[in-house]
């Protein structure tokens, strides 16, 4: 306490925060509402701020059969695709970054710094600056419309490697020396000592990378052409025909809710890991 708190001063933060929370939540609330109405009500803009009665029908329809007109793929398939993509990207990034960082921190070998920089510089080459050449390579490798094509090019990670490197540097050298004295080689040390120590870092990274993978847009947009390969984030875009009456908004909004639910649940349930991951990957 620094100030004598008047009633006014006590209330202001709550008011501001509640307004903030409402603004932040409103678009999603509206999407939730829309997903409980029938097509005509939404289409004519007669929706109210209370839920309708078509919720189960809408979600059942969208998950198992898809929309009528735009993309006819059931959202169930899309959810599965998104989940596979997010999991493979997150686990892949963690695995290859973990072993890269292990090599860079715990070994001395020619061109070590060159290797470090080679990984580091990819920070400056986001997919957006090399869209078509990358697309062409994936096409040449016959990887269009495959999970490999969808995930493999995104698995390299300078941020994750840097994060593990940073963490490994804080591992006391005495630990390595003690392991050596106890007769552990590089494999045993990695498995018995380093890996258990890295669990929190890996978990934090997983949360961030899962969200990253789930929310990918440009890359799946390029790589997937078949409807049964598309992810939910792409699928929802295809359901919306900007100027056209064909858009089945109540179904599109149900899809939006399904698309945002998994990553949001991950953030809310693993808030501590999420914050840790976010703050540390940006250092």
């Amino acid at each position: 306490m620094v100030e004598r708190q008047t009633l006014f001063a006590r209330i202001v933060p709550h008011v501001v925060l509640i307004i903030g929370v409402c603004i932040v939540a409103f678009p999603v609330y509206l999407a939730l509402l829309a997903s409980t109405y029938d097509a005509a009500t939404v289409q004519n803009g007669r929706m109210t701020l209370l839920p309708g009665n078509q919720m189960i029908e809408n979600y059942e329809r969208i998950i198992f059969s898809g929309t009528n007109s735009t993309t006819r793929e059931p959202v169930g398939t899309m959810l599965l695709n998104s989940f596979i993509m997010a999991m493979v990207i997150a686990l892949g990034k963690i695995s290859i970054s973990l072993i890269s960082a292990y090599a860079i921190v715990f070994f001395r070998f020619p061109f070590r710094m060159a290797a470090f920089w080679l990984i580091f510089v990819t920070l400056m080459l986001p997919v957006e600056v090399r869209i078509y050449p990358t697309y062409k390579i994936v096409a040449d490798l016959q990887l269009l419309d495959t999970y490999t094509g969808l995930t493999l090019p995104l698995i390299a990670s300078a941020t994750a490697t840097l994060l593990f490197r940073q963490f490994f540097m804080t591992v006391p050298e005495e630990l390595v020396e003690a392991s050596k004295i106890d007769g552990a080689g590089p494999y045993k040390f990695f498995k018995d000592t380093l890996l258990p120590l890295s669990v929190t870092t890996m978990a934090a990274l997983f949360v961030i990378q899962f969200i990253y993978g789930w929310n990918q847009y440009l890359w799946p947009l390029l790589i997937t052409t078949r409807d049964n390969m598309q992810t939910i984030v792409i699928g929802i875009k295809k359901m919306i025909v900007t100027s056209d009456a064909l858009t089945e908004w109540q179904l599109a909004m149900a899809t939006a809710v399904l698309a945002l639910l998994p990553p949001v649940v991950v953030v809310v349930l693993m808030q501590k890991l999420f914050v840790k991951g976010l703050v540390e990957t940006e250092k």
Partner: protein
Amino acid sequence: MERRALFGGKTLPYMLLLPQFAIVVVFFYFPAGQAVWQSLLMEDAFGISTEFVWFENYQLLAVNPEYYKTMTTTAVFSFLVAFLSLSCGLLLAVMADKQIKGATIYKTMLIWPYAVAPAVAGVLWLFMFQPSLGMLAKMLRSWGIDWNPLLNGNHAMILVVLAATWKQISYNFLFFLAGLAAIPKSVIEAAAIDGAKPMRRFWTIIFPLLSPTAFFLLVINIVYVFFDTFGIIDSVTGGGPAGNTITMVYKVYQDGKSGANLGSSAAQSVVLMVIVIALTAVQFKFIERKVQY
């Protein structure tokens, strides 16, 4: 930092690095090199022959008014999103930093939009502001505003700015909150004893001490608007109306998609690369300075 305690092994470290290297070389360096190479080539109108033209693609970009328009659009978009999301994030963080009841609940309720995909965020906002059925669009129309982001370029810009800001507030909020927590409580108390009232305390002590965080966030926000808002633009406006919301990244995508002008698309990619390198350099320069602070 050099370590003493190390493992030997001639081939093991290379084996460990191999997977990352393979991906990086095949999917990062090779395509990036290709982009640079392609930016120096030009196809004829029928796509039959290709000619090495040095920097002609860049020269054409430099005199292309459309390209300047996308640059302006990107700049305006970046400025608005960065300004709005930083101010809102700061305001909310300052409020949540006070020792009030339910601070953790507020925090949870404010950070989740980070997890929403940009394209999904775009769709949510489009739904609210869709001129014929959007709830907020109808409200605007009832006030006599001829709201139509599908036809009016400014309206479209406002819509993508709102969607992009909405998604970014949580990120800025979190980092400002961490920045505030890092200011020693006793410094604030010292200022209170030194006779600074809350407002003056904020502007003379808290704000300057937060400025490294704010600067860092500014760079991050610009990068965000440049690259991550692609999904918002594509789902909300598709670059329209009349090309009013085409950002630099979106133009690379569009020009390449039509396939007509790969050389120009590649040149634009290279320009973007230079921008990313500059932003990353600024960011690291800043981190160095922060370490000294």
